């Protein structure tokens, strides 16, 4: 039988929440990127009518959106809104990479610079003991 001091137990619990939140946050981001990618694939596969938009890609995209909604609620249950909302800013940067490598879309200098600035913002947010 092992005894853990209350302070240490809190620290372990806090670390577990952090790991759990990080996994959920990454899943949340990945699902948003997957949903947008599937929507794009769906729109390129469909012809110029609304009915052709109802296909396997659209259904998968909606499934991703719904799963993301559940994960987002779990994240909000464990964390403050101010802390976790900014993490979503990573999505456009990842979409930029997907659009370039999967759909061969053109990337401008401003896209790269803007993404770098967004990443800088996130780095400031998640870097422990960052002082401003």
């Amino acid at each position: 039988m092992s005894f853990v001091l209350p302070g240490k137990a809190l620290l372990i619990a806090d670390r577990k929440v952090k790991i759990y939140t990080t996994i959920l946050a990454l899943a949340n981001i990945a699902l948003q990127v997957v949903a947008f990618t599937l929507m794009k694939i769906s729109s390129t596969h469909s012809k110029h009518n609304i009915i052709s938009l109802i296909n396997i890609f659209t259904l998968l995209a909606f499934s991703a959106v719904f799963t993301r909604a559940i994960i987002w609620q779990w994240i909000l249950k464990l964390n403050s809104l101010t802390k976790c909302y900014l993490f979503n800013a990573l999505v456009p940067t990842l979409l930029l990479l997907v659009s370039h490598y999967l759909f061969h879309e053109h990337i401008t200098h401003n896209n790269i610079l803007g993404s770098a600035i967004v990443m800088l913002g996130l780095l400031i947010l998640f870097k422990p003991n960052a002082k401003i």
Partner: protein
Amino acid sequence: MIILLSALIITLTATGQIFLKKGAILNKHLIFNQYVISGYGVFIIVMTLSITLMHYASMKYMSAIVGLNYPSTILLASLVLGEKIQTKTLAASLIILLGYIIFTL
């Protein structure tokens, strides 16, 4: 008209997130409770308003609005939910906003 719609979209997006947060901390079903349903209801209004705004403004302008959602949501979370905002959180949200503006220029 554009400014009014933009202000509404930004405020309602932040409000929707507040509803979701309230729904998450409620000791009821995680998804199907009154706050979460209201939150997603608000997002449907936001989507309708965004489509309306796109008639008057360019897509670039929309990205700036998405960027503005970050500082406005954390400010509203602080006001309504009483969450503490660290200086680095506020600074990060403003840097992200700048990033979004440059991204779409």
